[in-house]
């Protein structure tokens, strides 16, 4: 049974349209993205798995066909905005979480802290 809870992170006007910003929840860094064309919100882990640096929020977002992604600002590996799955390496994926915007507040659904 899902024990996730929606946690408010910031106001939507603190996001950068069609780019990312980082947020800190406890020890975890999140990368928040807002795609203005579809008015959709996405949250991935901010940790670039290839370099170990907390930089994913600083990547450029784009699409390959139907797939929307963010490219690492360091070495340009691409990760699906929906699933966190790497587009360049089957073995690699970023943690990803559902996101929504309620009354102007961007919320992310994290599993209940253990």
């Amino acid at each position, binding site marked *: 049974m899902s024990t996730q809870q929606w946690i408010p*992170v*910031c106001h939507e006007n*603190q*996001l*950068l*349209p*069609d*780019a990312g*910003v*980082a*947020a*800190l*929840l406890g020890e975890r*860094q999140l990368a*928040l993205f807002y*795609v203005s*064309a579809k008015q959709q919100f996405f949250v991935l882990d901010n940790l670039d798995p290839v*370099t*170990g*640096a*907390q*930089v994913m929020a*600083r*990547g*450029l*977002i*784009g*699409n*390959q*066909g139907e797939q*929307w992604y963010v*490219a690492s*600002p*360091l070495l*340009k590996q*691409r990760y699906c905005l929906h699933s966190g799955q790497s587009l360049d390496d089957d073995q690699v994926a970023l943690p990803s979480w559902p996101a929504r915007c309620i009354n102007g507040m961007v919320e992310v659904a994290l599993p209940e802290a253990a």
Partner: protein
Amino acid sequence: MSLTRLALVGNGMVGHHLLQNLADQGVLAQFAITVFSEEPLLAYDRVQLTKYMEHGSAEDLSLGSMAQYQAWGIEVKAGVVIETLDTEQQVITASDGTQHKYDQLVLATGSYPFVPPVPGHDGPACHVYRTIPDLDGIKAAATRARSGVVIGGGLLGLEAAKALVDLGLDTHVVEFADRLMIQQLDAEGGELLGAKIRALGVKVHTQKNTQAIVPLQEGGVQLQFADGEVLETDLVVFSAGIRPRDQLARQAGLSVGERGGIVINDQCQTSAANVYAVGECALWQQRIFGLVAPGYQMAKVVVSQLLGQEAGFSGADMSTKLKLLGVDVASIGDAQGRTEGAKSYRLFDEYHGHYHKLVVDAKGEHLLGAILVGDATQYSDLLQIYLNRMSLPEHPEMLLWSADDNADSGVGQMVLPDSATICSCHNVTKGDVVSAVQGGCCSLADVKQQTRAATGCGGCVQALNNVVQSSLQDLGMEVSSDLCEHFAYTRQELYDLVRVEGLKSFAEVLQQHGQGLGCEICKPTLASILASCWNDYVLAGEHVAQQDSNDRYLANIQKDGSYSVVPRVPAGEIKPQQLIVLGEVAQEFGLYSKITGGQRVDLFGARQEQLPAIWQRLLDAGFETGHAYGKSVRTVKSCVGSTWCRYGVGNSVGLALDLENRYKGVRSPHKLKFAVSGCTRECAEAQSKDIGVIATDKGWNLYICGNGGMRPRHADLLATDLDQATLISYIDRLLMFYIKTADRLQRTSTWLENLAGGLDYVRQVVIEDKLGLATQLEAQMQALVDAYQCEWRTTLADPQAVARFQPFVNTQASDSSIVMVSEREQMRPATSSERINLFQEIA
């Protein structure tokens, strides 16, 4: 099996080519090779001798090097003359007394310049133009001379005249015949060439038979001609043809021709067993070939013979294309129309100063020859038609117009056979190029590297490019030149759209010409194009989301997510107080400091949120942003120049300051590095920069498209002795032309390598203004210069922009993931194992 002892006498271009060929075939191990070189320098590119006059560096021309020959296991005896040859015993004796037995001997002794035996021909004022020492002699003499005369108005004579012009001499050309280049041109062509060269200030004297060269009391000499006229000058250069160097062969009793030359058969064998001759010393069917390409073919034939393979020399095409004193001249096949029944088509364009002539056979079916003066753009097309005996189109006169004027002329439509030679210097056929493309070469530059085509005289680059492009298309790998899936345009097309339609943001361009969200390819590309066109603040609301990692934070992102900071230090000139501030900032913010190659200071390890505070300090101390993060003009490196240096000729720091302050921050397809040297010692290493300037006693020499780094490229000399205003107008034009036409992330060096038409084309656009773009390009650059702003100053004035440097949107906390350790008393990022240890200690 014992090794074949191969002796090679002569280490010129052809001799070197033979060795290169053995190396390419991987058969060096079968031979014990000894090379005898009379010149102390190893093989160099004699065809490019005039470049030596321009660059002044023998290394630029060198083909063979001691290290290379050593790696090949070849023994080299430099500065040694072979004095005798005993074909019975198969032994040669060198000037140092040593004797060498050979199994196979190749004579590649080349030729010497013919000096007509007129009285006074051997005086101190008389020179020849053949070797690097000859050129050094001319250079030295020119320092005490005002005027110079070249005797001989042939191809080499005009090259020599160019050298004298470059040396600043009042230059004369004296020719026995009634026109210049009598071997290659007809009366009209020679006449036009003469007129063009006269217009450049060179005095041309035809129908002059020099009878004596008389020394004058006050120095210099007087040339006395058969018609009674005289000409006084300080320096004479003979260029009256070449004669084969066949002394050794004569001494050994080999067959030689009546007028010299070592007789060879189709296998390049001389009359003695196991002795070959190649290049300009060899006489084949009563002919000496004074060009390098036939020599290369002979060298290949000999290599085949040595390896026991069938091969023969069957003559060579003597067609040629050159730029003489800036005038394009080309001659193909039977240019004079001597073949029986030959007819010609001629176009004499007095308005533009072009003369084009086609010689066709009696039936008008095949091209026998051609002459092009003033504009030789059709050369490679015509040469292909001639070499491959392709049927002429119904209206051969169409071929008189250059491809530019007539894109659909017969030439473009005609299909070359695979056997067609594209590059005659390296004997590369169309088939070779096609297989290189099939083997994975995807660009002109790749193919050049792989096949060596267009790396000799470079005359075939246009033809090569056509074959490369059409082969790519045939393969269906028609490398889509679209930028990415979001824009069905090339970078250049997008640039033109942005300019012409006045588009100001990525969103606008995407909406009108693209689809989807964009990507990490097209976003930075368009951000760069927009900045190159309008030079807006890159972090303005409509631009910020498209900036790549570095531009978005106006700093250079490092592996751990921290940033480095590089303030501009124009020309590398820095006040002591500014140095102190740099030190204070580094200390205060705990930054690692390193001096860059571009004469600035790089401060590493800044956290994102520290950047605004660091920049506030730097701006207060008078620094500006250094654009080290941008694909843009970086630095103008300089030496101290004439202000301090005892050798300095020009004020290199002053010019470098002007250049850096003019072009700072101009965004381009890739980064741009400049340098200015105050004399030819070149301490600023300008010839490895995108834009390099070197002071001369008459102004500035401009070098372009050099590169250090991964693929070093020596810069090309674009123009000499410029005043500062002209220099800047050329740089304006060149940079804007590069910005307009280059691919994304293409450095100027690869841009030039891939540009069809190469350096000549750049010269036409930048100097001759062939496209009529010069004024526009200059105005566009001026607009960029006028729109300059220090991006950090603008950023600090905008609280919203400053807020974006906070690492987290939901807290003021700083990023604990960036961890530094100390090494050599400075900070550096912790390695992953160090981080684990550190965290364990804390826990």
